[in-house]
């Protein structure tokens, strides 16, 4: 019984969405649904009594660990300082700017096949890309390049440290 409790707790913890009793029963073949329900309610009580930072809660679709509601403001504070990640679109756009700079937006759009306006704006805000000037052709499009911060984030001494397409292809051999 003790062991089943640890297994069920681990399953709920590792599950990517609230875990239903059906899924638990399916995973632990041969275990009675009633026993699963009993274990879950014992676990919920224990976590409540422990007075820790999170609780086991029953939500619409199943069971889920959730941080204690009263601690929400602390978690929001933590999330504000969350390190940045780049979306695939931002990464692709950044790759084009890095490798093709100085480059205009029309060129980025052409290579990606979609409008790069959104990702480009995000990269400018994150200070990974900067405006280097304007191209003196009709419409005077803006020229983009990468920043010093870009080098820092990717731990590069300078742009010549970027791997080349040939080096990338050589690895595939």
């Amino acid at each position, binding site marked *: 019984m003790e062991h089943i409790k640890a297994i069920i707790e681990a399953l709920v*913890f*590792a*599950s*990517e*969405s*609230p875990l239903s009793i059906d899924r638990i029963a399916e995973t632990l073949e041969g275990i009675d649904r009633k026993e699963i329900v009993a274990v879950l309610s014992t676990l919920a009580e224990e976590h409540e009594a422990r007075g820790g930072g999170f609780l086991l809660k029953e939500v619409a679709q199943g069971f*889920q*660990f*959730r*941080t204690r509601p009263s601690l*929400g403001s602390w*978690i*929001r504070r933590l*999330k*504000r*300082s*969350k*390190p*940045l*990640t*780049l979306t*695939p679109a931002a*990464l*692709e756009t*950044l*790759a*084009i700017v*890095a*490798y*093709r*700079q*100085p480059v205009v937006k029309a060129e980025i759009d052409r*290579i*990606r*096949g979609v409008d790069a306006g959104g990702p480009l704006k995000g990269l400018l*805000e*994150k200070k990974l890309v900067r405006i*280097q*000037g*304007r*191209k*003196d*052709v009709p419409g005077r499009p803006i*020229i983009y*390049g*990468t920043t010093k911060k870009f080098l820092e*984030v*990717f731990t*590069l001494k*300078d*742009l*010549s*440290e*970027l*791997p*080349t*397409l040939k*080096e*990338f*292809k050589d690895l595939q051999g």
Partner: protein
Amino acid sequence: MGYEVKLDIFEGPLDLLLYLIRKNKIDIYDIPISLITEQYLQYLRVMKSLSLDLAGEYLVLASTLVHIKSQMLLPSPVLEGEDEVDPRAELVRQLIDYQAFKEAAAALEGRPMLERDLFTRGDHTEEMPGSEDDQERFEEMSVFALIEAFGRMVARMDASEKLQIDMEKISLADRIDEIMERLAREGSLSFDALMERQCDRRRLIYTFLAILEMVRLRMIRIYQRKPFGAIRIVLAVEG
């Protein structure tokens, strides 16, 4: 010897050699080269007869073994004051090195591994989105992800417009960046000053090419007040 051992269970020629040494219970510091060479070559013959693709490295080690064998048959002329060098020494060092890393690899695999033995919390649906402002820190990011993304896009493109990306282009971007930064700081630059600072020839050429490229892109303008006078470079951007 048993030929039931398939080629793909060896990670390379060194792995095969280690296997033969273990199989024959041989002291690695005193490898009977004739015996091992013979067995090694026999393995290669079997692999060939099974039409297995032999990596070139297997043949390289074969020739190394044959070479060591021939060296050991010759009486080596010992120079005065010099120790005799065992022809096997280099190979032994390589084998011991490789063996150490094989063990380190096994030790790594023996550790509790994420997504195999243990898992982190799966459900993050509860979380509230963080605000996007004044974030300065970044997750560890790899330039491999960049070149990978770039490589993917290049692969998608028509062969007719494959992008050329090489060190020249990148070196050029570096110099353009540098010049833009100096221009932003100092307003204008003299051509001579810009070129003088370049001590190495390669840099000098790229600086010159960068200036030409920037003129082509109309990022900068170049002025000369009188013939043979000082050439000034200014930003072409307004405002």
